[in-house]
């Protein structure tokens, strides 16, 4: 293509290279992006409005659907917001179970996105493996919660049902399998593959300053050597009871971010093992009375937790009635998906656009809502 040819391209929403139903409008000069504009809103369902229409308990079924990649994170933030406004104490066992669920969800999300990233650079074997591995985690979820993807398991006041000991053993077995068999394969097939390294190294760089300035967190920030993690900075659930490291990178590029995803999974395995070893006995749900009449006092709370892609926050306002007055969702990839596209994509070559979009973990439903 002639270097000086100006092209305008609608990239997505119907395109395998975009993460989900999301579009980016580009202008190219040759094959280099000169300007980019996010075309979001294809997944807008008006969640925040719908939540205002429903009583507290009904919203537990609604929130996981805000982000299909990380439904459990949404359930957790919602429950935490409710508990923060209502000043509700959660039984310790429930805290542990929540952490186990969140870490399983983290592994599930990371392995899926590593698969997706690999597909973005044509490594389809890894995509198959990633999706397959995720499916074994979904089997565990199905056993604990009764559903594969939308679990509706973490509830205000605790969790819906107790985990059986058998299931905990199964989780430990799966963790061993992941660590000893599946991850080494992945390491060989993807991370030691010079082709993959070349495609990711030095691509889609976001520096520490840029990340902090736009409010990007998680792997994007950590890839610059900053070990910021809300699990450590503002511990919730049972994270204050476990030891783990926050993996970081050095260069702030796609390669570092994908390595962080990998190392994060290993840390999650470590966390899950500690949690299962230490899990206390006891109830898993605080007594909140009749589910149809959950009522918490007037008040508001901004709650946030560390999703696999960074800070996931809810601003919740209660007016003391049976329904939330306002819930505002701050998805982890909101700044990247809307602002980051415009600021950082220009200069990228067209073939690297999927690398850019996928390695940043952009999940459109969470900012479309």
């Amino acid at each position, binding site marked *: 293509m002639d270097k000086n040819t100006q092209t305008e391209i609608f990239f997505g929403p119907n395109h395998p290279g975009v993460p989900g139903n999301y579009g980016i409008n580009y202008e190219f000069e040759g094959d280099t992006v000169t300007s980019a504009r996010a075309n979001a809103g294809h997944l*807008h369902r008006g969640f*925040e409005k719908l939540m205002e229409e429903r009583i507290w308990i009904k919203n537990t079924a609604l929130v996981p659907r805000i982000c299909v990649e990380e439904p459990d994170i949404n359930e957790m933030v919602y429950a935490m917001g409710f508990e923060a406004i209502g000043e509700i104490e959660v039984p310790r066992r429930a805290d542990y179970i929540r952490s186990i669920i969140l870490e399983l969800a983290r592994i599930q999300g990371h392995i899926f996105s590593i698969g997706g990233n690999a597909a973005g650079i044509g490594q389809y074997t890894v995509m198959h493996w990633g999706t397959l591995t995720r499916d074994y985690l979904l089997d565990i979820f199905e056993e604990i919660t009764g559903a594969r993807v939308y679990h509706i398991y973490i509830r205000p006041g605790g969790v819906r049902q107790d985990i059986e000991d058998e299931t905990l053993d199964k989780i430990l077995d799966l963790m061993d399998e992941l660590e000893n068999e599946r991850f080494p394969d992945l390491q060989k097939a993807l991370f030691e593959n010079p082709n993959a390294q070349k495609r990711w190294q030095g691509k889609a760089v976001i520096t520490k300053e840029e990340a902090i*300035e*736009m409010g990007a*967190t998680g792997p994007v920030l950590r890839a610059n050597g900053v070990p910021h993690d809300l699990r450590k900075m*503002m511990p919730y659930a049972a994270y204050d009871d476990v030891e783990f490291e926050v993996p970081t990178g050095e260069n702030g590029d796609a390669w570092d971010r994908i390595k962080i995803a990998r190392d994060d999974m290993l840390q999650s395995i470590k966390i899950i093992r500690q949690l299962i070893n230490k899990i206390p006995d006891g109830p898993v749900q605080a007594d909140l009375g009749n589910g149809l009449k959950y009522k918490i006092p007037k008040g*508001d709370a901004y709650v946030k937790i560390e999703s696999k892609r960074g800070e996931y926050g809810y*601003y919740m306002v209660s007016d003391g009635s049976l329904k939330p007055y306002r819930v*505002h969702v701050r998805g982890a990839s909101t*700044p990247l998906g809307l602002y980051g596209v415009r600021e950082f994509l220009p200069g990228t070559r067209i073939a690297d656009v999927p690398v850019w979009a996928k390695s940043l973990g952009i999940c459109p439903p969470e900012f479309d809502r």
Partner: protein
Amino acid sequence: MRNEKDLLQLMNAHFEPLKLEIKRKQNVSVEFKKEELIQALSFLKSHSYRHLSTISCVDWPEEGEFELVYHLFSYDDLINISLKTRIKRDPGIFQTAKEIWPVAEFYERDIHDFFGVKFKGNDNLEELILENWQEIPPMRKDFDTRKFVNDKYEWRDYNGQKHTD
């Protein structure tokens, strides 16, 4: 490293906040007069509160006000601070924060989509999420989504089997 109390003192020393509150551990909320808010944002940004989580808007039709809430976080103090201010619902105009955080432009556009609030200094307020929206902004309390849906769409009646009350 400041704790929650230090932070509130700092706020009190430099501004005239209407209400200061330690919500819970590592969470603080401060309400400002609308004239002071933007100043407070840039002040806090220069005092390590560099992370803007998001901007929330809450509609309070009975008071005739919108409440804007800016959630900041400091990686040094590890405190989350929510800065609140109230603006008149009509005409619903506020100052932009995009000079302080460029990303705020998109949060403001989001609020403009859903509440119809305009931000002076942010000229690019075209539709971000919605497309061809003709009604009053949907997140306003006076927009009744069920009525809208009833008017615009039809429910399946399953050959008359479905009974709805």
